[in-house]
């Protein structure tokens, strides 16, 4: 069986190398062009972004349709988030709620900021280690793709690599400008 083991190892190494290369410029370009979708999303509904946040018990439930805030699903940087907004769970757009842990892996989206007209790369990290927050569920699948494009797949739990893989909520963190933006 030595041959087969060797074959397996070879295939694995070769593919890994491809993946690593792909993960540099080339892959990212792909990702950023594709835009990206959300967390363990299971986006079962035709989504009305604002309503779903309110239905889930966001504390801004009385708000009128003014500027979206960080607890509204249509806030600009949530363009590809799928899951519970940490902003409604005791965190913010960029902070995990107390006692939870940012995910070790994440996916990225590209969102347009209407305030400055720029497209930003946004890292969607899940906050992990507590069970589901259950507040402000937001959902979109723009350029979401099946798991053979794992970096843009959202039918999976992105707390998967954490010591506790329980999913609590999702943050949306600016990691840079989209390529070609200034």
């Amino acid at each position, binding site marked *: 069986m030595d041959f087969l083991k060797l074959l397996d190892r070879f295939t694995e190494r070769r593919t890994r190398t491809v*993946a690593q290369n792909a993960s*540099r410029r080339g892959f990212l370009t792909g*990702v950023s062009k594709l835009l990206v979708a959300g967390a363990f999303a299971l986006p079962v509904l035709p989504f009305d972004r604002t309503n779903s946040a309110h239905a889930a018990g966001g504390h801004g439930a009385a708000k009128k349709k003014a500027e979206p805030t960080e607890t509204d699903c249509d806030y600009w940087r949530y363009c590809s988030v799928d899951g519970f907004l940490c902003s*409604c769970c*005791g965190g913010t757009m960029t902070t995990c709620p*107390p006692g939870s842990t*940012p995910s070790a892996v994440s996916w990225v989206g590209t969102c347009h900021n209407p305030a400055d007209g720029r497209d930003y790369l946004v*890292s969607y990290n899940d906050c992990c280690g507590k069970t*589901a927050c259950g507040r402000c569920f937001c959902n979109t699948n723009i350029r979401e793709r099946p798991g053979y494009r794992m970096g843009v797949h959202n039918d999976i739990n992105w707390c998967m690599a954490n010591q506790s893989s329980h999913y609590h909520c999702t943050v949306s963190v600016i*990691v840079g400008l989209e390529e070609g933006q200034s």
Partner: protein
Amino acid sequence: MEKIKKRPWLLALPLSVAATLAFAGPDKPEPLPEEEIKVEHLTPPDGNRLYVTDFVFNHMADGRVHVVDGRAARYLGMVMSGFGALTTVSPDGKAIYLATTYYPRLYRGQRSDVVEIHDSETLELKAEIDIPAKRAQAVAYRSMLVPSSDGRFLYVQNATPATSVTIVDLHSRKFVGEVQTPGCWSIQAWEKGHRFSTICGDGTMLTVTLDDAGQAVSRERSARFFDPDKDPIYVHPEMIGEDRYFVSYYGNLYKVSLSGDKPAFTAPWTLLEAKDRTQGWRPGGMQVTAMHRASGTLFVNMHEQGYEGSHKNPSKEIWAFDVASRKRVARIPSNAAVSLAASQSDAPLLYSLNPEKGEIVIRQIAKGYPKVSTMSGIGETSVIMEVR
């Protein structure tokens, strides 16, 4: 807040370079900077930190304690509490205690009961203490999990269904003993010493005194102070110093002083006037009363047209009583609340919880009890609140 390194999967390129290369045109603001993920810590509790116990009936395996800023009406986070947990908060507000049950495979395997200590600023687990697998899987009434007033011991109500109390030493973080309390229920801790009383099915109190090692050194049965058949009392206590107040199903208030050698009982007085009685007003709910201690104001969750079986019904009004004069001082509209809590801070607040909506109405404890705010969606079957 701790800084956390981001590791977007498959994202390894030097984004900061891209950000550096970007520059603002004459009519454009600077691009937004790269951000870091952090984890929130809470500020120390300010007297209006609200802890809301949600046993999540439809998914009882996944209970939680919601932490809320009562003054700002802001959701702060949660502590996972497992299956049908007993919960409470330390007197100084620094720790959340809970007694819960785990199975290694969610719903199967060997039962493990534990006491957990969670930090109320980080909402992180600080300690886990094994206890006998017999703690009551019950509504987390204030008298089910009770620290001694000096913070040394934690008393845990057991039911197998035979009743007893588990003693946990909070200093050594160890289970140290169990006291049999057959036919009795609830833990009414004394202000002084390591002593608690429990309410018995024959209308008496059993008082247990512990030594410094947490072992029972005496057990004394009181005289009968209420008639469980004719006027059953709720086990939820209100506390002013050494005095404990219990309201009964039929609207009488019982005062017990846990001081000196043994409990001292005051004859109960009625909360109801003749007209109230005609209209069938009665106490109802889960956490049926709240007390503002400085003013000696007792709040009672009241409904009208009461009947046998309505003692847990939500309230139509919240009645305020001056405990000293035994006079009703206000009738406050209710949000069909089942549970009440009051803060003791400089500008105290009254909290009333409607579990069906997860709605908490917040009012000033002041003339007219003006409404400050309403929060909703605080859990699914939240029934108990504590304030620190």
